[in-house]
């Protein structure tokens, strides 16, 4: 199915679980993966007589998100959204409705396009239901178990304008938003744990026309991959309906990852009447300008700015695709300060980016904690030939795991850089052992350099510096 001749219009709703120590309205621990129903109290269980008290830290994070997304942060109200579901303790969700805390902002994608942010409002999460026994699905399970640990966890829902035009762009929006949420300390960014949950509103219209088509909301998008596939599938479905003269019905649809299709959950007519009204147990939330300024002052540099800094360090105009990917990775993971520290210590940007986007990025949590000066010193040792690349990677793994100083770690591991003479001797030995290959190499068969380097490494138990070996080989060939 082709969507040729059609324009896809996408708006996203992203739910972000806030990384607070406690829940939105009570003192229970906000933690993923604890024993079910251990982080609960009368308030988050909605027991009769209990009352909510707003978590100030959650408000500050919500304000940070709004500020980072260029929103107007404004006086706001909490409402009750009324509907029955067994994992919602009060049978209403405390949320913000017509007066949210953040409105009318925008997010700039790395390529420069702006996506409008309509609102970013606060609300509480629900519990989690597991259907057990029988077929294990909602309709054929023997029974359902509810875990209320998640009930009352603070969320911010970020609603974009319908400004995106392709699945790829939607993915880039979520990636950039995730980087921003991680940067302001709102989220750990883990989609697979449900820290970030995305719903997509998708409609299509003839290319060149302006009126919005009928949209469908797609739920259950647990990864960037699902998001992209679901949007593409949904756009195909809508285009094929319209091209065969049918109508798109306004529906909420569920993405089924296994069958790779969306399934209708409910239509507009079946939509819930949530009977929103102002939550009488909470007072209006009106952050004064002083508080707003204080929160804004604590917001760190945003990913776009940090990427730009790395591009400037590269100093070659536009980075190539590989470099752009490395830059994006280190910024998203919050490892760019390692790159900056390393280049500050005289390490070449290429090496700093490579080690940060690959080896350090493999263990991002520890890498974020590592002492940047120790990290820079290690890369400097590698660059100066005091450690081979293999050795440097081993020292880095140890450094991330245990901390300490790279020189001490290298010594402990018995990594001492081999002197140039020793390397030259080893090279000479290897050449002597492979006369035919050496002759071919001399005739210009460059790929044989790998063979010689490998043999030298074997002979020196990996202690030789690859760059020194290469230089020696080139010298002898000339």
């Amino acid at each position, binding site marked *: 199915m082709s969507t040729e001749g059609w324009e896809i219009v996408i708006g996203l709703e992203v739910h972000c679980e806030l990384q607070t120590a406690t829940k939105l309205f009570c003192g229970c621990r906000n933690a993923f993966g604890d024993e079910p129903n251990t982080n609960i109290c009368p308030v988050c269980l909605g027991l*009769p007589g*209990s009352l909510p008290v707003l978590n100030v830290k959650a408000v500050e994070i919500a304000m940070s998100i709004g500020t980072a997304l260029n929103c107007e942060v404004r006086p706001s109200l909490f409402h009750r959204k*009324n509907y029955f579901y*067994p994992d919602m303790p009060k049978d209403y969700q405390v949320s913000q409705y017509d007066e949210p805390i953040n409105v009318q902002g925008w997010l700039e994608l790395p390529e420069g396009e702006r996506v409008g942010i309509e609102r970013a409002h606060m609300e509480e999460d629900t519990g989690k239901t597991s259907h057990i026994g029988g077929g294990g699905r909602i309709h054929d399970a023997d029974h359902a178990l509810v875990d209320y640990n998640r009930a009352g966890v603070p969320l911010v829902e970020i609603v974009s304008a319908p400004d995106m035009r392709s699945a790829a762009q939607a993915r880039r929006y979520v990636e950039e938003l995730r980087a921003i949420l991680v940067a302001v300390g709102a989220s750990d960014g883990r989609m697979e744990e449900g820290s970030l949950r995305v719903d997509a509103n998708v409609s299509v219209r003839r290319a060149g026309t302006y009126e919005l088509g009928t949209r469908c909301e797609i739920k259950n998008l647990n990864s960037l991959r699902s998001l992209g596939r679901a949007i593409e599938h949904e756009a195909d479905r809508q285009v094929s309906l319209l091209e065969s003269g049918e109508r798109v019905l306004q529906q909420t649809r569920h993405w089924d990852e296994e069958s790779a299709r969306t399934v209708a959950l409910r239509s507009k007519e079946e939509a819930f009447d949530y*009977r929103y*009204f102002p939550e009488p147990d909470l007072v209006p939330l009106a952050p004064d300008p002083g508080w707003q300024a204080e929160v804004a002052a604590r917001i760190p540099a945003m990913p776009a700015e940090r990427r730009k800094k790395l591009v400037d360090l590269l100093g070659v105009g536009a980075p190539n695709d590989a470099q752009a990917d490395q830059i994006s990775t280190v910024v998203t993971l919050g490892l760019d300060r390692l790159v900056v520290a390393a280049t500050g210590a005289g390490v070449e940007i290429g090496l700093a980016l490579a080690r940060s986007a690959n080896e350090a990025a493999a263990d991002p949590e520890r890498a974020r904690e590592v002492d940047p000066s120790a990290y820079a010193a290690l890369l400097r040792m590698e660059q100066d030939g005091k450690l081979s690349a293999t050795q440097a990677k081993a020292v880095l793994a140890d450094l991330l795991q245990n901390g300490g100083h790279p020189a001490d770690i290298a010594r402990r591991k018995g990594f001492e850089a081999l002197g140039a003479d020793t390397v030259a001797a080893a090279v000479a030995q290897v050449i002597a052992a492979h006369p035919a290959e050496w002759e071919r190499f001399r005739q210009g068969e460059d790929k044989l350099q790998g063979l010689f380097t490998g043999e030298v490494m074997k002979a020196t138990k990996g202690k030789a510096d690859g760059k020194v070996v290469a230089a020696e080989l080139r010298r002898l060939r000339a």
Partner: protein
Amino acid sequence: MSEDASAIAAAVRSGEASASEVLERHLSAIEQHDGELHAFLTVLADSAREEAREIDRRVAAGEDPGPLAGVPVALKDNLCTRGVPTTCASRILEGWCPPYDATVVRRLRAAGAVVVGKTNLDEFAMGSSTENSAFGPTRNPHDPGRVPGGSSGGSAAAVAAGLVPVALGSDTGGSIRQPAALCGVVGMKPTYGTVSRYGLVAFASSLDQIGPFASSVADAVALFEAIGGHDPCDSTSLERPASMSLGRLGDGVVGLRVGVVAELLDGVDPAVAKRVREAAEVLAAAGASVEECSIPEVAYALPAYYLLAPAEASSNLARYDGVRYGLRVDASSAEAMNGATRAKGFGPEVKRRIMLGTYALSAGYYDAYYGQAQKVRTLIIEAFKRAYENADVLLGATTPTTAFEIGSKVDDPLAMYLSDVCTVPSNLSGDPAITVPFGTDDLGLPVGVQVLAPALQETTMFQAATVVEDAAPPVPTPRIGADATDGGERAAGGERAAGGRGR
């Protein structure tokens, strides 16, 4: 017996009486009379005895057991008590024991009070007669054929009958003041926010307020002092106003401006209206300047209330879904189980209000009903503010009639709703109000006079109420209760305040 709380506390603190003796007298009064009265849903004899012994131990050890030392207190059964059934007089919560105490319960215990039991109410505090209790009605101690009022009818009847000196109730549209008036005791609704609602099972959150029942204004003040003040667990709770103090109760009303509100006398039974006018004369004679005034917006309070309160209730009561606690009627799906549980667990009045409230909040009707009612509420708040530019306190009837016969209004919800017509305005405005017994009607049934004050002006309100109380015509001894065998009439309120009543 019928002892003052203040007198009991003084005697227990000085070691003149023991908390245990005091408790036993009240437990035996409950034993003797509550079969007929049905004021209590749960009597906590064992834990009360333990609490009383602890007070006695502390007195013996020279510790300060608190200002309400050894005072037996009853709690409306919509106040959460840890490990003790809290039913809201509903089948849907039968057998549920909260894992925590309401803030007011903790504060009462901290003040040395002894919790003797949980009292009957209209289911979820919805009603004006206590006939909507799933566990049967409470009777009016003055006439067992009549209602005690409601919804806090159990607490009102228990205090009137002398089974406890003081009790707590909750007042959403008059549920403390109306039964207090019908039973001939003092009942007070504090300024919204001065008493924590944490642990009060919500009916209509923006209107609910916990307050005291007592046989004197002084005792009501003592109880209010013990339970009031800011609570970090209730976002709508306020700091305790600095001006409030027991010491100023007897300061009198010289120069005080009193407005007698025409709308709180319109349509009121002439015998009741007559008593209000007499109370106004009492205040004038004591040096207040008394004038008639009109607050026309008050006429719209009842219809606004019967949209706002059910709207909030429809949401507050959604949690009784059979999933986590209380009654569950099993069915094939979660939705069906929810429906079946609620159909069986709620009584007709609760269902009526849930339906009213759900309708008032529905898409397409919100603006016409809930939205409009909120606007009326704002008008009423502003109207009271204007009235208080010319008056320090306002005076009116508490109820349009005295106690009515059991069964006479149960089939006519609108007639029942009208029982709240004089009390509802203060809930909408959030201001404090108190009812003081002031003689009887021609049938010898108690009449209450209501004193209203601006938000946080409880001290002025108490001063005026004390003057009214001191000059109040007597209320006869209830037919059921601890004093019933004494015969004769109760002494006037002034003697009560001095602590010398009926002993």
